[in-house]
């Protein structure tokens, strides 16, 4: 049993599905990809690059003072490099259409930042990477909408790419399921009892007997490990906030840009595959509450102001939404993953991931499989494993003739439900067929409601389609599971 269906859990499930092993994934939410997998910048980057160097500086706030920033032998670095190099072919196998190679320009706009830039450059060299130095003219030639304040910068055009992380997670999940993995959503693990070398795992849907447990519960990995009595780490939590800007700004920037990093401070302005831009300057606010994903207006304002200092052409009103996420650092070794068979119960594997986990996910999965193999799990390849998965067709991106063909096959692909993102009824119905049960699940699979009106128009229609396809009353349709019903009463019900 894999506990948790984020990027790590689904990657492990897919990896295991290559073998003749019975695999079950228990996820407490009604959908996969709900935790840290959803709430991050979507950057897939290599440890031999500028973002990595920058993140070493930024994340140094969680380290003891005097600790070296470089960890060349870390598991994190090795697995990330392996995962990053394998990513292009994986994206093809799994039809991850958001996958886009990108460039990053770190820019300095004052003398302090010029100094910080120099320090980051030296760190890059130590990582074995040589970013290209750009002067003001070169930067403005590449990015004419950067403000004239820019003095110089560093360019990295080899080590990064961006995806929608949830798309990656859905792809892994669908492919794992196709290959025989059982994904149980809405299934919360409540107790883990060791028994005869295996475990009885109590869940909100009843007990499940398993020989091995892989703990990929993300931010709740400590809780799950504690259930089995194998928790030898704690978590430090850091909250962040990102704003999403209107698609109208598509093409404003070709590269990600941002100032050079400082411990705990940095920022990045990322053009997204959809044409929106994400801006994040708030990343490391200490918090104790794992559920605290609330936003702060003053953070939005600060982020927006910083962005407008760096880029021209962004107007008030261009923010269409914001989201918050929590970064997790384990207290045993904040610089690295903890991926190991626990000493007390070797059949209980902790897979506690230190950011970044996106690029590394498949390499982490292979590593976990090897650990399971070492602990006696028989890893015999399936003959009929197939690695390919097709995404939901996106009518807005199809060439006209293919779009015509699709509508001719199924008229629902011609009926546009979400006008901002041009999403058809066919796509929404297909998302539900693939497992979407909530408004949010439909949104992350199809982009319906992700545009500038934020579901103002399509929201009621999506609720209606969910109720129809799932054959439930409208009052049972939820935003994201639990008690998050969109509509609480029928007309006249409150008058009775």
């Amino acid at each position, binding site marked *: 049993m894999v506990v948790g269906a984020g990027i790590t859990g689904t990657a492990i499930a897919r990896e295991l599905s290559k073998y003749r092993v019975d695999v079950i994934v228990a996820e407490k939410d009604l959908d996969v990809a709900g935790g840290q997998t959803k709430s991050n910048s979507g950057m897939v980057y290599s440890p031999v690059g500028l973002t990595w160097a920058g993140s070493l500086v930024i994340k140094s706030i969680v380290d003891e003072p005097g600790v070296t920033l470089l960890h060349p032998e870390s598991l994190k670095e090795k697995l990330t490099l392996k995962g990053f190099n394998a990513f292009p072919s994986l994206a093809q196998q799994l039809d991850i259409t958001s996958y886009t190679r990108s460039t990053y320009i770190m820019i300095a706009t004052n003398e302090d930042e010029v100094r910080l830039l120099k320090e980051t450059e030296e760190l890059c060299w130590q990582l074995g990477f040589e970013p290209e130095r750009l002067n003001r003219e070169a930067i403005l030639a590449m990015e004419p909408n950067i403000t004239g304040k820019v003095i110089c910068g560093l360019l990295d055009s080899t080590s990064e790419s961006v995806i929608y992380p949830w798309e990656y997670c859905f792809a892994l999940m669908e492919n794992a399921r196709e290959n025989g993995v059982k994904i149980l959503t809405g299934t919360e693990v409540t107790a883990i009892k060791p028994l005869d070398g295996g475990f009885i795992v109590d869940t909100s849907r009843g007990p499940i007997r398993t020989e091995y447990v892989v703990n990929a519960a993300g931010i709740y990995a400590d809780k799950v490990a504690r259930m089995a009595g194998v928790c030898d780490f704690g978590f430090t939590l850091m909250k962040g906030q990102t*704003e*999403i800007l209107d698609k*109208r700004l598509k093409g404003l920037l070709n590269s990600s840009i941002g100032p050079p990093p400082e411990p705990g401070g940095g920022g990045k302005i990322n053009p997204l595959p959809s044409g929106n831009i994400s801006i994040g300057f708030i990343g490391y606010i200490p918090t104790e509450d794992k559920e605290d*994903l*609330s*936003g*702060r*207006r*003053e953070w*939005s*304002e600060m982020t927006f102001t910083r962005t407008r200092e760096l880029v021209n052409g962004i*107007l008030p*009103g261009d*923010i*269409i*939404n*914001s*989201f918050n996420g929590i970064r997790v650092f384990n207290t045993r070794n904040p610089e690295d993953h903890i991926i190991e068979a626990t000493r007390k119960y070797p059949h209980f594997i902790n897979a506690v991931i230190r950011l970044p986990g996106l690029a590394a996910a498949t390499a982490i999965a292979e590593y976990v499989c090897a650990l399971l193999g070492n602990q006696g799990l028989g890893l015999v390849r399936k003959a009929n494993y197939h690695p390919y998965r097709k995404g939901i067709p996106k009518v*807005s991106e199809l060439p*006209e003739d293919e*779009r*015509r063909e699709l*509508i*001719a096959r199924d*008229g*629902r692909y*011609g*009926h*546009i439900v979400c*006008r*901002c993102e*041009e999403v*058809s009824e066919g796509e929404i119905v297909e998302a539900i067929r693939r497992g979407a049960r909530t408004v949010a699940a439909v949104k992350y699979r199809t982009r319906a409601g992700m545009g*500038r*009106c*934020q*579901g*103002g*128009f399509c*929201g*009621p229609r999506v609720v*209606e389609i969910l109720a129809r396809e799932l054959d439930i009353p*409208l*009052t049972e349709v*939820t*935003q*994201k*599971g639990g*008690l*998050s*019903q*969109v*509509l*609480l*009463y029928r*007309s*006249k*019900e*409150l*008058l009775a």
Partner: protein
Amino acid sequence: MSREEVDVAVIGGGPAGLAAAVKAREAGLDNVIVIERSEYLGGLLDQCIHNGFGLFYFGEDLTGPEYGRRFIEKASDLGVKSLLNSMVVRLSPDRKLLISSHTGLTSLSAKSVVLAMGCRERTRGSLCLSGTRAAGILTAGTAQRYVNIYGYIPGREVVILGSGDVGMIMARRLTLEGATVKAVVEVLPYVGGLIRNEVQCLYDFNIPLLLEHTVTEIHGKERVEAVTVARVDKKWNPIAGTERVITCDTLLLSVGLIPENELSRSIGVELDPVSGGPVVDSAMETSLSGIFAGGNVLHVNDLVDNVSREAELAGASAAAFAKEEIKQRKPRVRLIAGENVRYAVPQVVSIGDDVTLSVRVREPAENVRLKVGNIINQSLRVVKPSQIVPVIVTAEDWSKINGVVYEMLISCESRR
């Protein structure tokens, strides 16, 4: 692939689109088509089941569906064609349209086009409200659709942020449905919508109106459980110590409407950053030849009656363009917003044209002089941002122009 030719293609089948199509058809064009993305004509009128429509246009007090019905019937009697459940997914500056529907992709080529896509509501995301992202936060118009079209009530205890017209109307509507509206919270010292709604929807139902207040925090993990409201200073910053928590399960937002101009932008129509709609001339023609605009896509109107009036002009002009009637080239002036004026539509006016300007003021004022260059100077007792000031300019007014004029200041000056 074949491409059907039409005279006038009207994008949007709400009040603006219908009025424009009717006028274009009345001008004698055979092939006038309305393209509507939802399953019926009339746009948002069908969910506006309250009265107050048509007082100016028909001299009658109608409900939204009644008002809409009159135009739908007229359009149908005149033989205006309509495509329902059909969305224009591509538009080109040379007036070629690609339309998606159940039946496939349809290509149209139009001699002229009327943009009548209406407007959308500002959302929680664009307000950057602090707090959780629980379910139960929705715009007033979305709530109106749930209640009046679907027959479902979002929640039992409601706070409404913003006092736009839809918000106030939903305050009354939800009260009539048995919900409790605990407060309407408005950051300004006056309501955002019409006075008649303030009286008939809030005062008459004893719904608390908190002026110069805002919502500073949303609480609740899965569903909204409460909001914190606080008094604000003149710069809209919350005043510490004035916060109080109001328990509720629903937060409605009625904080402004935005003209929906994604198609316009995609073909490079010049937009007015203040009105949010295309820059148009006195024939309601946009910066692109043969492409006209009318109704809330142009600027957010106060009354549907004004939407119909503006869109009729757009429809008539689109018909004239399609018939290749030669327009007399006249010198044009651009209107510049001056004191206490947010915007005026049309923004560009041909000298000599009879035209009605729709003027939106910035702040409420009493005993003002409304001036357009040196050609109009009229006194008005009261102006409010919630009410469009119609300013009629006639040939006689234009005769006061002397010399060559390219720009005219439009202002609403308080007498001091």
